[in-house]
């Protein structure tokens, strides 16, 4: 969709106010590194493995 022109402080069209509004999302967060990355990947693997194991082995954890 085309951004509609907006009026600036002077009430005239044009100038810097014609720029599209800033995105509502902030810049991307920094990537994970080192121990935090290792921990994150371990978490992902553990969750996926536990899920698959519980369903494949039809484990009943009483929940």
């Amino acid at each position, binding site marked *: *969709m085309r951004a509609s022109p907006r009026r600036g402080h002077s009430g005239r069209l044009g100038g810097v106010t014609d720029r599209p*509004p800033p*995105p*509502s*999302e*902030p*810049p*991307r*967060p920094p*990537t*994970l*590194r080192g121990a935090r*990355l290792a921990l*994150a*990947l371990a*978490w*992902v*693997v553990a*969750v*996926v*493995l*536990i*899920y*698959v194991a*519980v*369903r*494949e082995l*039809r*484990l*009943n*954890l*009483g*929940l």
Partner: protein
Amino acid sequence: MRAAPEIVRLVFAGIVPDLAYLALGLWMLRPLGLAARGAERLALAFILGSGVASLAILLLRGLDVPVPLAALAAVAVLGAARLRPDTTTRPDPAGAGWVRAVDAATLALAGLTFVAALAPETSWDGFEYHLPMVRAWSEGPIRALPAVLDAEFRAGVDLLYLPAVAAGAPDAAAAVSAGFALALAALIRAEARRRASPGAGVLAGAFALLVPFTLDAAPTTYVDLGVGAYGFLALLSADRWNRTGSARALGVCALALAFAANAKLHAFALCPAALAIATLGGRRPPARVLAGCTGLVFAGVAPWLVKAAVTSGNPFFPFLGGWLGTGATTEQVLSLRRFRLSTDFWMDRGVGGFLRYLVSIHVGSNPHVSGLIGPLPLALAPFALQRVSRATTVLAVTLAGLFVLQFMAMPALRFGAPLLPFLAIAAAVGGARLARAGPAARGLLGVAFALLAVHHGAALGARYGPRLAALRDPAAYERRVFPDQVALREVVARAEPVVAIPMGAVLWMPKPVYVLLWERNGELFFQDLRGKRDGEPFVVPRTPQAQARALLARRGVRSLALDVRPPHPRDGRVGNATVDAWLREGTATLRADPDPPRARGDRRWVIVDLK
């Protein structure tokens, strides 16, 4: 066994309504000012078009005007012209090779989902009331259906099944559910792509079709995927307002809210949620826009208010019963039905119960809750929760509130269908963040996704495989899945109509039946109902014998088909206090059968004739 021409007719009855609803939606996109491309455009068109089509069917069938497949085919053909791409938006850049490969696999999966939906309905609610209700409304105008309480609730998605059922192809009805599954996957793919990356988008779309939740619901006539699609689009559009400031997004939100509420009453809860997202997310809508949207919601739900007023006498049924009446049912039944919804998860409703619920969603064994959405939301979504905008914070808090409400009132996960796609998107955002950490992270994620795809794929094979074979031999499939219901069908064929049955595949029955379950008939407690409420045991006593007999007589019931525990009826009793009293009095007789057909477990089906 079906011959090839019959299979072609079945496919036709499945695909034509889907294409007609899509065509209606494609016509709507331009007036609504919705610009989208590819699969997302088709998804938006299907969701919005189906909502309008449902209202049209409500009007037509309310006036007893037929809705033939040929007419829908004409709509679909006329709409084909609108299939050409929208040139007002930029095409997405071509993705990497693996992204295109996942997209191709998802497309194949979509085709498989559609074909699997064409097998006989074997989901319990589907053959017990969704399709029988639609069949009744295809054989006569939309009206009150005696002793079918569900016919008094909203049936916006149910009506979309009507063209296939009216054409004599009820097996094709679930193609609409499959359509909603594909639409949801396409919306998830597009939103994840926008928020994360093309790769995250295609993976989120693919897993949306692979998770057990979709495998369970897509080939059935449960309406949850439809409610999910409408509700998700509504909440997504409210969030889109915060991001873009486009009032058109709020218009779409209002329409989708109305369609969701028309499909299931509890979706009304999404209205205040959408309002909260749109007003608190950092961009307060002008009052006139909000007023317009409110008007749109009311205009969208008004036809169902009229329907409820005509069939139950209360436009807001089942609410305000003490004031406006409860139609053919009672406040007690309505209250018990609401309570019944909360019993799908038996844990307490405190903090401890909620934590157990969260665990059970991932690794429990509750059929209504556990394992349905796969592990990726838990595994990846936490990494999306960093430096989020105000709009996203408001969205997340609102969704969390709705989720807690769901846990309290109706914990079966399918009732939260509008919320679940957001988990997929959060997982996609979190996964994309992890993937940016380097090749090792991407490699490990790839292995995890592959393992999960194999696991879900095996479940898909087990679920869809027999359904594909059922296209040729539906009877064999029914015998395999529900042998007791096939036996019940044979018993009903020998009994005097109307035949009262305990519960079951009403759709399959060759004669008119009356369901003895209070939840379905809304008027008769055929046996004592025992339960626990707030920790206290309670008993609802069975309807007194004379009153029960009068009710059954009023419904034309002349025989009962009952499943009986051992010792099978050789002792002259069936184990139900009411019926045993009639047998003793001599006002009912047990039909002799040396080898009664098998019901569930060691039970047997018997026929009791009423005098």
